[in-house]
């Protein structure tokens, strides 16, 4: 298991599973600070896989630099063939569905699971 933690957040992935879990509030200051998280996300695309899951259910807050980071990941996934990308979100967290609809416009094949 790989984990990136900060004062208010945790991002983790499990070896052999193409899932990345987000938790807390992410307010890093720009692309440099988000680079390790973007790398972790891109790591799920490195092998031929059927499905990649990004689990945001416990992510309460994401600033615009974080939205930019997610969009970079989605573009990367879109531009590779055969990636079946799913975002798992919560109805109880107001920004999830709203902000993800823009990511879905970037990659129409992106699936959003409400959980």
């Amino acid at each position, binding site marked *: 298991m790989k984990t990136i933690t900060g004062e208010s957040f945790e991002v983790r992935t499990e070896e052999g599973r193409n899932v990345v879990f987000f938790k807390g509030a992410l*307010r890093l200051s720009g692309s440099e600070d988000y680079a390790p998280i973007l790398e972790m996300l891109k790591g799920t695309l490195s092998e031929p896989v059927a499905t990649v899951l990004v689990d945001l259910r416990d992510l309460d*807050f994401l600033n*615009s630099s974080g939205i*930019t980071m997610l969009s970079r990941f989605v573009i990367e996934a879109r531009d590779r063939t055969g990636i079946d990308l799913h975002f798992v979100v919560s109805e109880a967290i107001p920004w999830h569905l709203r902000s993800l609809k*823009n990511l879905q416009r970037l990659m129409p094949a992106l699936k959003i699971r409400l959980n």
Partner: protein
Amino acid sequence: MMTNQTLGRWGRPPARQCEYLVVSFSPFSAPLRQRWRNNGVSADFLGDYVKAFLPAEINHAEIQHAVAFVANEFLENAMKYHECSVDIPIGLRLELTSEEIALTVSNSIGPAQAERYRDFVANMLSQDTGDLILARMEQGADGSDESASGLGLLTMMSDYGVELGWRFEAQPDYPEMMTVTTSAVLNLTNPEGAA
């Protein structure tokens, strides 16, 4: 020299019952890294604060989140672009009436930067918000922060139904400086957030 100007939605009808809260940060008191952490604390506080004043029929969680998102983006931008060489504070004001919530942030910048920012805002207001968000995201794929800038403001308009306005003013005490004040208005009578 740039003259005083306003763009977007600026100025509201005087409200008979208006309550407000002002937070002010001196550029000299702490380095940016240390200050960054406080953005989230202040933004969350304002989100919690407005919740206590909202009528029962409004979706509290939506408005709380919208206020926290706008306040956080405003503070992040102000901290990033504020001219720290002069003793002019960054100000964040929250104003409440029964119809709307207005958040304004003010910070100081040099005249050349003010002109660039004004042109950026004018260009942003002249285009479709949804299309611009997509264009920004595609440009942001090259990894630069500059190409990603503006996404916060666009997100406020697109995802939270916020009306934005800007005022550029000369600084009487520092002729070489401009003050830029950004205003975000969330309508409570027909809030996007309560939809």
